[in-house]
């Protein structure tokens, strides 16, 4: 692109306000020295004139079609908004369920941990039946949940099978059960 073409492009950019100040100054200088460039610029208003004829009015059929589309779009948007607004409800339900599940897990964990330290079933080197019984009866919340106790005992026995045989554990459980009943 030669200098003349570049200046022509600057004229175009100047018309749309997209020419930088420094280049505008350079263009002014070029225009002052170049008559051909001046003629090119002076011809632009005529060439760039938009359509003189006004557009015809919008046909009623077109406007009706656009109104229908606009109404449809509003309805669709409204439905989407309702769906969106209901989405947090679902999320809340999910969060609530997840929170309940978490609380249940933590509760179960707490129950296990609350039994283990007292019984010393896992942490201690020897199994103490008296200690286990004491722990169970000390914890009122466990009295009504024999299934949980059974599970705890089974787990404890699995961890320390070498300390207590299955028969011994079963006898201990039966003895404890009969006493509690």
């Amino acid at each position: 692109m030669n200098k003349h073409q570049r200046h022509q492009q600057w004229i175009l950019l100047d018309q749309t306000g997209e020419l930088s100040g420094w280049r505008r100054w350079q263009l002014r200088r070029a225009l002052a020295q170049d008559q051909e460039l001046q003629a090119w610029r002076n011809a632009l208003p005529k060439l760039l004139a938009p359509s003189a004829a006004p557009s015809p009015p919008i046909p009623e059929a077109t406007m009706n079609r656009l109104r229908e589309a606009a109404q449809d779009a509003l309805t669709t948007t409204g439905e989407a908004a309702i769906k969106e607004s209901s989405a947090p409800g679902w999320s809340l339900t999910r969060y609530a369920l997840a929170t309940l599940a978490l609380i249940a897990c933590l509760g179960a964990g707490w129950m296990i941990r609350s039994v283990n330290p007292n019984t010393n079933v896992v942490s201690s080197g020897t199994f103490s039946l008296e200690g286990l019984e004491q722990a169970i009866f000390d914890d009122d919340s466990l009295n009504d949940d024999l299934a949980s106790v059974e599970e705890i005992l089974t787990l404890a026995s699995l961890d320390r099978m070498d300390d207590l045989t299955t028969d011994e554990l079963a006898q201990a459980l039966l003895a404890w059960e009969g006493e509690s009943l």
Partner: protein
Amino acid sequence: MNDQELSEEKVMTCIAAYQQGSIQALEELVTLTRQPVYAYALRLTASPHGAEELFQETWLKAIRNLEQFRGGRFLSWLFRITHNLHIDLVRRHKDTVSLHAPAAGSEATLEACLADPKPGPEAQAAAADGVARIHSAVDQLPADQKMVFLMRTEGDLTFREIAATLNISINTALARMQYALTKLRRELAAEE
């Protein structure tokens, strides 16, 4: 078109009102953009019927995608839709012979090639008008130059906006405009 009538503020006000349920606000926006969009469509399709159809399709698509408009020059956004729809239309009908498509071996449309070489009284009167002569010369421009020229003249888009609309560089947009103007000047000088 008056810039003040279609200011960004006005556009956003109309869109907000429409999104609150006012169909009248949308009608106002359609009416405000009628002149530039129809004129652009008319120059692209070279047919009042085609222009009307393109205008309607442009606005139907605009309505469906109004939420995607993120501010800026609304007319530029509309012109992009018009441009893309026109390209789709041309592609769809590329295997069919169209009066508005470029004739084989020529940049002029088939309609222009088939036109009676002797202009009628109305055409003669129009030819006397400088604007009509320019429009006629613009119709003979290659499509890529014509697009840039029409966006600049009918839509008053900046070169940055034209470049974004046509997905080309600003230098390419400028070069196309420059070629178009040089050709138009030559055409008009030859006629005079």
